[in-house]
């Protein structure tokens, strides 16, 4: 595995990078904000000119970035900025109006085994008649394949994943009897059980207790230490600098993307969150009205 090779190109000095941000026409190929076909082929995730629309109203517009290898990447932006949609589009869960997504240089459906996913907790019915271990075992289904039962080895792997999130004692507990934070950890364990290289996490920190938040942060750090990459939708701006190496500021389009200490500036945040009714929004409204 060539985790480190891409890292090397990615670590550039702040001034250097700021200059590139300011001058996107730079001749020299740049890893952070490449355009056209200049995307590196070995990036865990590269998104090319992605546009997604719901009922013809654009939700994401020309999103284009490469996620660097082995980083914790925060996806930050206001409500309705398209953060979840970006993840879903990467996972082929919503149709793309245009653009393409590559995972380690290949289309997603050829790389599923390398990708783990933590959906938002509220998207499922926690009254479902399964235990915590059953849910985590779903992370192994892809490896188990059609028609076969969950074998001992896969149960073992699922239990290990639960252990890693500190939930081994709750393996047999029915999921409705878990607290919100515990449910979130079960979801995380399910993604860990996938044993992936690239993780998408949709608001794993939403409405969890402090202990769970810390547990999740620790796991993220473990993942990074093991050379994995994680894209995490995050809401709490306060904690962004301490949790993430890299941020993607999103509001329908990419406002900025890059190392946290360069990109996570009040100026960029103002661009991301301030003045909701940009020209882009107005155009989107107009398109929706047209229909």
């Amino acid at each position, binding site marked *: 595995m060539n985790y480190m090779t891409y890292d090397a190109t990615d670590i550039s000095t702040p001034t250097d990078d700021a200059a590139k941000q300011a001058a996107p026409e730079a001749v020299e190929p740049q890893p952070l904000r490449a355009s056209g076909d200049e995307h590196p082929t070995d990036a865990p995730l590269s998104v090319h000119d992605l546009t997604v629309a719901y*009922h013809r109203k654009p939700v994401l517009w020309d999103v284009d970035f490469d996620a660097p290898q082995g980083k914790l990447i925060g996806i930050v932006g206001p409500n309705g900025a398209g953060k979840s949609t970006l993840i*879903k589009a990467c*996972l*082929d*869960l919503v149709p793309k109006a245009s653009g393409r997504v590559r995972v380690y240089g290949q289309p997603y*459906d050829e790389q*599923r085994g390398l*990708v783990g*996913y933590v*959906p938002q907790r509220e*998207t*499922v*019915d926690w009254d*479902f*008649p*399964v*235990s915590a271990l*059953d*849910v985590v075992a*779903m992370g192994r*289904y*892809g490896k*188990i394949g*059609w*028609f*076969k*039962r*969950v074998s001992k080895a896969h149960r073992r792997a699922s239990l290990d994943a639960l252990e890693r999130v500190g939930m081994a004692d709750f393996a047999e507990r*029915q999921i*409705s009897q878990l607290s919100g934070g515990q449910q979130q950890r079960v979801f995380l364990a*399910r993604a860990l059980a*996938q044993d992936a290289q690239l993780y998408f996490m949709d608001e794993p920190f939403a409405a969890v207790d402090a202990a769970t938040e810390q547990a999740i942060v620790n796991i993220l750090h473990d993942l990074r230490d093991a050379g994995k990459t994680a894209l995490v939708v995050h809401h709490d701006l306060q904690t962004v600098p301490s949790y993430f190496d890299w941020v993607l500021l999103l509001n329908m389009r990419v406002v900025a993307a890059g190392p946290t200490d360069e990109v996570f500036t009040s100026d960029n945040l103002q661009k991301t969150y301030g003045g909701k009714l940009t020209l882009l929004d107005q155009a989107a409204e107009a398109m929706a009205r047209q229909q």
Partner: protein
Amino acid sequence: MLTTLAANTHDLSHHGATWADVVEVLTLRNYNTRLVVISTAVLSAAAGLIGSFMLLRKRSLMGDALSHATLPGICVAFLLHVAMGGDGRNMVGLLAGAAAGGLLGVGTVMLITRHTRLKSDAALGIVLSVFFAVGIALMPIAQRSGGAAAGLDTFIYGKPASMVMADAWMIAAVAGLVLIVCFGLFKEFAILCFDDSYAASQGWPIGWLDGVMLALVTVVTVVGLQAVGLILIIAMLIIPPAAARFWTHELWAMAVVAALLGGLSGWLGSTASAVFEDLPGGAIIVVVAASFFGLSMLFGRARGVVPRAWRHVVLSAKVGRQHLLRAVYERVEARGESGGRAVSFESLLAMRSWSARRLRRVIRSARRAGLVSRASDGSVRLTEAGRADAARVVRNHRLWEIYLINYADIAPSHVDRDADMIEHVLDAALVTRLERLLEERSGAVVPSSPHAI
């Protein structure tokens, strides 16, 4: 496989039922009864099984749209057969028409929800009523068409007694298919029902899996039309699974219990309608299933009302006894070594916010458990067993209080009430952890209270 729709003559044609009749039905000695009872039971079991997944997929009402939409399909198939020179009573043709109509109905629901902003409840309501209305409108046309349309309304209300051997084979085949597919695709259906977008992200073809599930519901509905009728078949897809959910927290167990309850309902319902000729079979099956649902809701082990209430009663009695033990213990402790060991009823009453009636009840319960004894003047004292128990209770309470004050930042004035709730559910493992955590503070067997009692 040509069979007739006409109701076959039935052996039990008396209006009243004698014991002999009942015994004959129950022992399944009669060929017709055996056929009807067994096939109805097998059909209902299959409906309960696939219905479990539909319920968890939150698609149960799709079955309702499907079943109602079979009627126009049946009528059209009938008219086509007449137009081709037949008498319309081609069972295979009619069932194929039913399936086509049903799938067309479901397809319409999907089209409406996908391409408009109408939600699925509106789409379902529109489709099931409109398709049913079209079917009803076609009925008189079918009746005037010259074919033998007399049996068509069997499909609406169901008439188990009209089943023949070919129907039984068809039901057996369908039930076998449902069983095999649900067993083979158990984990695939589970992930689909629990978290479809996650399943899709993993590459499971959720459209195909939904299609397989829908196909199974369609075949169950179509072969069940004769037994339960298209209005009521939905009951067999929803009620047994919903009842089963009260008994278990496990998916496979829920599916098995739903199949058992469904099968039992089909068995008892068709038996009852075989014994009492006037009882409409389809409706009775549903009523039986509903009574199972009622019993499950009340007594279901996992989440029935009564077991839950009982657990609450047991816990609150235990909590009451522990409160009493602690009150007596702390009273005696406050007096010191020289004080007596009997505590008056009045001083106990003053120690907590409990009514005299509740306190008397708690004392009675503790006495029965051999924890306290009562003197003739009404004062309470701990027995040997009671003292040991009380020491443990007080200890847990204080450990927990100390923990709350030191680690959870809860004000000492509030800590008593918070500890009150939790100490009763502390298990041994948790107590051990508390002990380790508070080791240096709690050298004593029972630590002293961290606040004024």
